[in-house]
């Protein structure tokens, strides 16, 4: 079956886009890797866990219910097809329309192909984690990973956690772990979020965000979680698994204050330094990127005809921004698929929210930053590329002795970024150690694809 519009990703942006387009009579195929819609933000316990209070780990549950019910209605009445467990590895541009290539199920062995006249990329983002000694020990997990395991699997990895790094994600992660019975020994942020509250005009325009933040802060107080602003984890300790972390205070320049280190015993460290967009599908389609994000116009169109993008892939900005962008993208795609010029007045409210939220997250970005001198914490024997086990010392040698000045050359000379994850995890760290700007690397396949599948991909039709 050929769809008018293939929406890739069933998180907030993809859901909003699907509902907006379907409401205009567009036949949408919504394609997502998870077993259920929702993406990372609305991730819920697996159905078979039969959770009666899934909302206990969530906020904005009512928004989710509205999206869920809307999707259900459209799927039932016909215009929307929802393909779950479809891991998209490539979107191929054809002489007419597009073919979305996916792998089925968690095993990702068998292929599926979806034809569509237009494509809407709502591929979301993933967490950035910068390296430090001991970060490869079992028990050290990405903050978002801890949250995903908790929200989706109702699972925690231990009894005592430290939540660390920087960014607005740390608060809900710490609050969630505490609510789930984990002792959160400390919330460690290299930024000082209070400085943001004092300083930001953008926050004044976002009263909802203040309430949300205050809500988490209140929960942390209730669980007696100690917050250490302008601190950082300098090392994770343990041999076979995490046993403790050392945290230290940062000075005004973002350097560790000598003598300020203290050891906190813990079996879990949930750590994150912000979010990165998934742009592989867009990049391979030939869409222009602005820095790390997909470039879109006011209608959320990329510069490739027939390709829209919305949500974190066009810039990290949270669920509310994703909803606004998804709505606009869906409306624009619907109009253009019907051969009409869209009327921006149809999405005026969403456009207003988009402007406001982009400003808010731009302001947030100026506050939540890793320690300015984080590379100094990366010792020569710290593994930086987790897949290929390339150390900081090897990367520094490639720069100092072999003349590498950019991340691609470092990769060629050290294998950093050549492994299973293709540099998605170590990319920012390698760029930082090489002293160059972090730019997205080319990844023609958004996911590993079996050669047997690749050998037959797209050969079914010949246009």
């Amino acid at each position, binding site marked *: 079956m050929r769809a008018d519009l293939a929406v890739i990703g069933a998180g907030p942006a993809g859901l909003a886009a699907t509902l907006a387009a379907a409401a205009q009579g567009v036949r949408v195929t919504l394609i997502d890797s998870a077993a259920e819609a929702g993406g990372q933000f609305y991730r819920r*316990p697996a159905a078979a866990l039969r959770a*009666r209070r899934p909302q206990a780990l969530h906020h904005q549950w009512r928004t989710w219910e509205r999206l869920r019910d809307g999707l259900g209605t459209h799927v039932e009445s016909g215009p929307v097809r929802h393909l779950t467990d479809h891991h998209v590895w490539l979107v191929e541009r054809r002489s007419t329309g597009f073919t979305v290539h996916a792998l089925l199920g968690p095993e990702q062995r068998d292929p599926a192909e979806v034809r569509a006249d237009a494509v809407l990329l709502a591929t979301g983002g993933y967490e950035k984690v910068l390296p430090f000694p001991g970060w490869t020990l079992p028990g050290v997990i*990405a903050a978002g*990973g*801890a949250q995903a395991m908790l929200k989706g699997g109702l699972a925690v990895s*231990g009894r005592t956690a430290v939540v660390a790094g920087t960014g607005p994600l740390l608060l809900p992660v710490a609050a969630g772990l505490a609510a789930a019975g984990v002792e959160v020994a400390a919330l460690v942020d290299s930024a000082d979020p209070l400085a943001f509250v004092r300083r930001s005009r953008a926050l004044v325009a976002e009263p909802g965000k203040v309430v949300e933040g205050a809500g988490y802060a209140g929960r942390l107080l209730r669980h007696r979680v100690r917050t250490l602003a302008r601190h950082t984890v300098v090392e994770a300790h343990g041999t076979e698994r995490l046993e403790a972390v050392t945290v230290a205070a940062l000075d005004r320049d973002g350097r560790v204050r000598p003598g300020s280190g203290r050891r906190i015993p813990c079996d879990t460290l949930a750590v994150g330094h912000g979010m990165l967009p998934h742009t592989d599908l867009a990049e391979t389609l030939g869409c222009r990127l602005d820095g790390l994000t997909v470039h879109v116009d006011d209608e959320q169109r990329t510069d490739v005809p027939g390709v829209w993008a919305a949500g974190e892939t066009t810039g990290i900005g949270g669920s509310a921004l994703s909803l606004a962008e998804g709505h606009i993208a869906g409306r624009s795609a619907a109009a253009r698929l019907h051969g009409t010029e869209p009327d921006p007045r149809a999405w005026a409210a969403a456009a207003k929210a988009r402007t406001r939220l982009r400003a808010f997250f731009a302001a947030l970005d100026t506050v939540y930053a890793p320690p300015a001198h984080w590379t100094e914490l990366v010792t020569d024997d710290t593994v930086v590329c*987790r*897949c290929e086990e390339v150390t900081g010392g090897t990367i520094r040698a490639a720069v100092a002795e072999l003349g590498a000045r950019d991340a691609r050359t470092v990769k060629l000379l050290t294998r950093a970024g050549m492994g299973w994850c293709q540099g998605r995890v170590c990319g920012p760290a390698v760029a930082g150690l090489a002293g160059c700007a972090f730019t997205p690397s080319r990844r023609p396949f958004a996911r590993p694809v079996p050669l047997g599948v690749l050998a037959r991909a797209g050969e079914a039709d010949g246009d």
Partner: protein
Amino acid sequence: MRNPLDLAGARPGPAFTVTLDGREIEALPGQTVAAALWAAGVTSWRTTRGEGRPRGIFCGIGVCFDCLVTVNDRPNQRACLVPLHSGDAIRTQEGTGHES
């Protein structure tokens, strides 16, 4: 003490048995390999091909490939994504996962 299952009011069906390197482990319907292993107190199930270091969950959402594991003789499955079924045989994975 609270736990996440209570918090969310989970009432899963009866637990079933899987094995990790031949040792029996209880798992709940809906749990991924990683969730069941965490619940059993196991945090690593792979050793790296260079240094032989232990690894387990890292990103938790299928991006980092740190949690690779062999399930029912198929290597390099992501423990954070693959749901368990009764009788599944999980094996600690060494090296590339293709060494026999």
